[in-house]
């Protein structure tokens, strides 16, 4: 009887120990709450952190662009302040007199005729009209310019005719461009010149917009061209 009791007691103890061991093992229900927490954290991370980090990266990009713009504007300020205002005003007046904002056909013809008379040439034919010229057509960025253009024909001695042709560059107050110059001998000392002459102007009606981020080039970089234009302007002033 005592043996039976101890056996049953041992059995009970073993059962109790097994139950204890089983109780210490992790069950599925133990993971439910942690899994829920992890899912919530991941959702928060993706829905909140990722957009926040993207925004911050965009802010950094924008910051870089803003700093680049600041540098551009600082350089522009330095370059513009280097240009002396009085000289700029004087040069602007000079270049506008040489390449005016408008060139009347009548003024242009008058100028050519006066020049021809100076060279003792007789007029064969002269006419002119407004035209749009594309200059630098073979270049990457051809420019459109406005001008007054017309065929002319004069006759006189060879020396006078050649002098007339050169005077377009040397003594012309305007910027003119002769094309298709045809020189033909009529008699021993009479030559006829026929050409197409264009006088240029820049129409200020096309308003230039102020864009501070446009690349800035000071006009003082073109000193030789400015010098030529100044001389032409001085000639115009002397004639007037």
């Amino acid at each position: 009887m005592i043996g039976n009791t101890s056996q049953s007691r041992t059995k009970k103890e073993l059962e109790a120990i097994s139950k204890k061991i089983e109780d210490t093992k992790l069950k599925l229900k133990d993971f439910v709450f942690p899994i829920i927490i992890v899912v919530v954290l991941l959702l928060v991370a993706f829905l909140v952190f990722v957009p926040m980090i993207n925004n911050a990266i965009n802010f950094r990009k924008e910051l870089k662009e803003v700093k680049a713009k600041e540098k551009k504007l600082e350089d522009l300020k330095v370059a513009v302040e280097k240009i002396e205002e009085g000289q700029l005003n004087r040069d602007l007046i000079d270049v506008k007199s040489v390449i005016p904002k408008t060139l009347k056909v009548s003024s242009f013809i008058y100028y050519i005729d006066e020049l021809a008379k100076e060279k003792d040439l007789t007029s064969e034919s002269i006419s002119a009209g407004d035209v749009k010229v594309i200059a630098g057509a073979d270049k990457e960025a051809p420019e459109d310019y406005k001008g007054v253009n017309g065929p002319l024909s004069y006759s006189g001695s060879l020396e006078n005719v050649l002098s007339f042709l050169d005077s377009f560059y040397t003594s012309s107050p305007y910027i003119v461009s002769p094309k298709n110059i045809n020189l033909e001998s009529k008699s021993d000392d009479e030559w006829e010149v026929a050409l197409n002459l264009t006088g240029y102007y820049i129409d200020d009606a096309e308003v230039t917009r102020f864009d501070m981020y446009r690349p800035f080039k000071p006009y003082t970089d073109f000193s030789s061209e400015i010098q030529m234009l100044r001389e032409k302007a001085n000639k115009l002033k002397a004639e007037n």
Partner: protein
Amino acid sequence: MSKEEEKNIKKTDTPKQELPPIIDDDGINLVPIMTKKEVVAEKRKAKVNLGAVLSIVLFLFITIAVVAFSTISKLQLNNEKEKLFALENDIKGLSTKVLDNQEVLKRVYLYKNISSSQFSARKIFDYFSEVAKKQGDVSFKSFIFGSDKQHAFEGSADSLDTASKLWYLLQKDKNVESVVMDNLSKRSDSVDFSFKVTLIPDAFKSLDEDQVDVVKQPQQSQGPSTNDSDSSWEDYKE
């Protein structure tokens, strides 16, 4: 079994537990002692709680870092934008100067575009006249100035030999890139010719480029050089 024997067995079988004193100096202690199972469970709970706390702390650090990064970036951007705005206002004050500069530049570019294709008709005519005269009795009847590089002329020579020499010299001329004879016809007392020449780039500068020097130096009246056809014409001044 007698009762005494049962009591002895119970005493030997049951583990000896030290029971806390029910009545001690502080009062009556009713809290039961924890079993081993409860102790293990408590230890596990403590570990889980510590893990949870550390996770929360880490999460907080990440949140603070992200928010701080975003806020600092935004603040820096706002500061730089303010600086840029102030700079733009400064530049707007210089807009007149910038626009005037643009107006001048427009005209300078026009002048450059036009003058790049200019050439001196007199220089070219005189040069080829001189080349022709050296060969003998040669005269030009017409001269067509096509562009700054391509020209054509017609004339007559006293003999075929003269016309051929002229052609040969034009081909050898340093300012001439190529010569094409369009026409060569013999008359009873003369030979008519017609040539198309292509000059090398910048063979004859326009007078405008020389004019700057002319303005600075006293003007000289100078006829064409009477040297041979290979002489340079670059110093010709009106």
